[in-house]
């Protein structure tokens, strides 16, 4: 929806923000988002977001890490380079534990980070929103609401936002 335009509204309080969002949803606008300096409790419900895939990603990665660790140690020390080291038994399972655990954790952790970047589409230092100078307050001390609409509806939605108590309304310039 490259043609669609994004309109921003700054709201004085969380309650006002949520109220505005609900009425917009009621009037059929679903492409909403909030911007705040800290996570807003309950925003997920208001925006009707489905569960995050991150836990699943981490789980799979951890499993892969554990399995590959066990296979690696077994193959390297007991198959490919099986040699008598201090009379220790050929398959010394206990001594595998540390590496196995560490590898599981490593892959899980990295997958979470990479997964997040993937979901966010980061790194993305420039964003059309940043063209709106007032929007900088979103990470400092202000609450913003964004709604994407057809180019035609821009003015109507702006009035709507004001009517819903926006202290300030901004139009995000088109992506170049």
């Amino acid at each position: 929806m490259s043609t669609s335009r994004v309109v921003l509204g700054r709201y004085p309080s969380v309650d006002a923000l949520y109220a505005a969002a609900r009425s917009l949803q009621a009037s059929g606008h679903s492409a909403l988002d909030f911007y705040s300096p800290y996570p807003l409790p309950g925003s997920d419900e208001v925006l009707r977001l489905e569960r995050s895939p991150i836990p699943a990603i981490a789980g799979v990665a951890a499993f892969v890490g554990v399995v590959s660790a066990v296979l690696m140690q077994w193959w390297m020390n007991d198959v490919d380079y099986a040699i008598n080291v201090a009379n220790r038994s050929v398959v010394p399972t206990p001594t595998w534990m540390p590496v196995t655990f560490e590898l599981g954790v490593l892959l899980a952790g990295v997958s979470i980070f990479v997964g997040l970047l993937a979901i966010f589409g980061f790194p993305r230092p420039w964003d059309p929103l940043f063209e709106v100078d007032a929007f900088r307050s979103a990470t400092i001390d202000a609450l913003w609401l964004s709604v994407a609409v057809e180019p035609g509806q821009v003015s109507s939605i702006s009035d709507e936002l004001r009517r819903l108590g926006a202290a300030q309304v901004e139009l995000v310039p088109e992506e170049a």
Partner: protein
Amino acid sequence: MTPPAQAAAEREALAPLPLIAGRPTDTQLNTELLTPIFTPSQGWKALVTLAALGTGLLGVGLTLTIARGIGMWGNNQPVGWAYDIINFVWWIGIGHAGTLISAILLLFQQKWRTSINRFAEAMTIFAVMQAAMFPLVHTGRPWFAIYWLFPYPNTMGIWPNFKSPLIWDVFAVSTYFTISLLFWYLGLIPDLATLRDTATKKVQKVAYGIFAMGWKGSSRHWQHYRIGYLILAGISTPLVLSVHSIVSFDFAVSQLPGWHTTIFPPYFVAGAVFGGFAMVLTLMIPARAAFRFQNVVTSRHLENMAKVMLVTSMIVGYGYLMENFMAWYSGNPYESFLFFNTRTRGPYAPIYWAMIVCNVLVPQTFWWKRARTSVAWLWIASVLVGFGMWAERFVIIVISLHRDFLPSSWGMYAPTWVDWSIFVGTISFFSLLFLLFLRFVPSVAIAEVKELNHEMQHEAAHAGGGGHEKAHAGVHP
């Protein structure tokens, strides 16, 4: 005054010390916490110069070591490991409190964590950087060790020996460093965005913009972000425990009296938390004064940390006790000789007793609130504990090695100036990194403090009643 207001006043009186003094607005918090970044002080420059010089010392020490050999150190035949591994264990131990504070306290939803976790995580990363240096440079041929310790396919057809605790170390330390770094950076992203948007200089805008990677505080992002951050915290916690357990295996898995001890893993972990918290205090107390963070790092935080130190100190003390008990109970002549003769009466006995005083006796003062709340004493005590933990590693490593099974091979150990310069050098390098961190990165998690601030004002509002507007006052520009 209305009855509810009076009740509120009474509750205020009974409540513990505040986590955030006063009722600052987001704007106030913002400016307050970013002051060190936008208005640097002269003292900072002086300290950086000092630390840089010390780091030079590290460079000299390492160069001589690699160019001429381990012989530049005091290590010798019975004492194969000394300052190198002492420093390694000491630094990695310090590196543990960070993740622990940040992760465990997050899992237990300890509100007081928010003001100190960024600080602690940074400490972790820088400490682990110091620690990670030693396993490499302590080898006789680091130019091979740097890759032979990793399982890579090679023409020799040889693989590393996964039975060796040193291989476990390689995996544990590298994993720990990676995860801590990611955890720290992830937590940093929203604040970097805040910096980007607060900055006035073009350079800062661009630089922080790049590191913020485009964060705009979208709730759709916050959703994944929080769960991801939480899981990372979740896996970091067992990771911390595993890493220091594995470090303790370096000793516990061997058969040397004083090393061959099953109690090592828990007691190393406790020791790590103990020493780590001491280091946090050692750094936090001056920084807090210098940057006037008293409002967010209140004496409530300091007191809590003192309590943690008291507990961990007693766990460590229990560890010492059990070691001695087992030495006596097992009836192993070599062990009892080590514990009841070499340590207590041997040539290095003073270090042993210094360890007992610093690690077991000094923290006992924290039973008294006056000790816990006296900033001066807290700082002195935490410095003493820092030394005590270093002494503990000396006791474990050097004292156990210098008199082992055959008296014929007993020997003494004396550090050379290179040993010292590397030790001092790591401290300087650590300080240097830390000073840079304080200067260029928000040393308190702004977003989290803001969140906490709102939660509390919200509660206060609902509890106190009538405070509704005030509760939301914060969000007015």
